């Protein structure tokens, strides 16, 4: 297939010629009004969640205030709807934002950039570009063949799974905006730093030969023209897809969190995950790297750990290593990377996460 032919091919995904796009009506005044009313209702319900959970636990179910079971039940009844509501709203918003970004566009932005600027941009674009971890390898090939520097490509590949809307919502909902902001900031820093280091090491020859010999293939798809109605549909689609996928993890995570909240004694975690335990950060990272869970499952658990005296740096390091590095991803990356580059990738990212952990444990 010739490149020019591809570029001229009509785009069938959601452009005006498809039945899909015809369904989406122009954004009318009434619909906008309904949207605003829905948002207002969301806020009203959200504000009532805590009194509702307290009423259900201690009023309706008649549990004793201050009891273990009461604490656990109240925690679960308050946190589950709160997190699900936050998740729905944010996933919808991010779905709309993401309709403005595609991997193709991100690649075009990064292709002409020098290293330092490229690393920062790549890490930031990693947050808003739609990315599925099973796409990591094709995306890697697409970026590298288009002339995106190796280190810049890695900054993107680290940031995309680690700093995501689900993780940020859960951190905000359960631990407050400060922890969410710290996670966002340090997650970006780890992605920028690790990518930059990999770039400095000049490891291009540790990319599999067939990838290096591959010529840049053109933009497969011309850009889509989306109306606001289409973008709103994208947002709704994201809610259906992500919320349907993560809700069991969220509920299971909150249930574990609720158990720890009610039954594990205060300060229990301080002895093994506290600030004064110097080895807790490396052990957390060592346990976290081969583990794989999404943010939805891990945040409620770390919430409970923190409450029982675990140090914030240790817990954040654990969370980052679970989300950013995983065994299945490394196995699949082996198709395009030689073992030494994989080892460097894991080593540099783990080192960055360790630094973050120690930094927080010392500073906070």
């Amino acid at each position, binding site marked *: *297939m010739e490149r020019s032919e*591809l570029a001229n091919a009509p785009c069938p*995904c959601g452009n005006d010629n498809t*039945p*899909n796009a015809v369904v989406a009506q122009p954004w009318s005044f009434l619909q906008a009004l309904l949207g605003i009313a829905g948002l207002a209702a969301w806020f009203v319900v959200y504000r009532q969640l805590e009194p509702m959970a307290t009423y259900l636990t201690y009023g309706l179910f008649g549990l004793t205030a201050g009891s273990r079971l009461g604490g656990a039940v109240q925690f679960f009844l308050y946190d589950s709807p709160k997190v699900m509501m936050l998740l729905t709203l944010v996933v919808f918003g991010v779905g709309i934002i993401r309709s403005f970004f595609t991997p193709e566009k991100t690649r075009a932005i990064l292709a002409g950039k020098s290293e330092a600027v490229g690393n920062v941009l790549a890490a930031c674009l990693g947050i808003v570009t739609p990315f599925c971890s*099973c796409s990591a*390898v*094709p995306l890697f090939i697409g970026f590298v063949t288009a002339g995106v520097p190796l280190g810049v490509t890695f900054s993107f590949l680290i940031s995309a799974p680690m700093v995501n809307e689900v993780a940020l919502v859960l951190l905000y909902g359960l631990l407050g905006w400060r922890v969410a902001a710290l996670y966002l900031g340090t997650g970006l820093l780890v992605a920028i730093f690790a990518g930059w280091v990999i770039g400095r090491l000049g490891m291009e020859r540790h990319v599999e030969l067939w990838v290096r010999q591959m010529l840049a293939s*053109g933009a497969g798809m011309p850009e889509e023209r989306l109306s606001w109605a289409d973008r709103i549909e994208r947002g709704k689609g994201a809610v259906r897809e992500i919320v349907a996928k993560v809700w069991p993890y969220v509920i299971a995570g909150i249930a574990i969190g609720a158990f720890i909240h009610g039954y594990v004694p205060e300060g229990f975690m301080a002895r093994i995950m506290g600030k004064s335990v110097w080895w807790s950060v490396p052990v957390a990272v060592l346990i976290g790297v081969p583990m794989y869970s999404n943010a939805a499952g891990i945040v409620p658990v770390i919430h409970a750990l923190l409450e029982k005296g675990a140090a914030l740096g240790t817990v954040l390091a654990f969370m980052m290593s679970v989300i950013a590095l995983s065994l299945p991803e490394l196995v699949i990356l082996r198709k395009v990377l030689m073992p030494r580059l994989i080892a460097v990738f894991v080593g540099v990212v783990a080192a960055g996460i360790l630094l973050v952990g120690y930094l927080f444990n010392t500073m906070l």
Partner: protein
Amino acid sequence: MHIKVMGPGCPKCTEAEKLIKAAVAETGVAATVEKVTDFQEIAKHGVFSTPAVVIDGQIKCVGKVPTKAEVVAWLH
């Protein structure tokens, strides 16, 4: 008509393949459906977000599972 569904085998790619096979069966169009999982083969088509659908060498969709209506439109 030759349809290639590209993707390493994640849930979304399997979903896309199933949907296309169902659409082919429903419309009765004479088409072969092939699942491409080899990264080298995928990259040769210039595709770098999966799942992707290629019909007779023409890229129809990248980075998402198409809707059934879209697939039916491509088949006609």
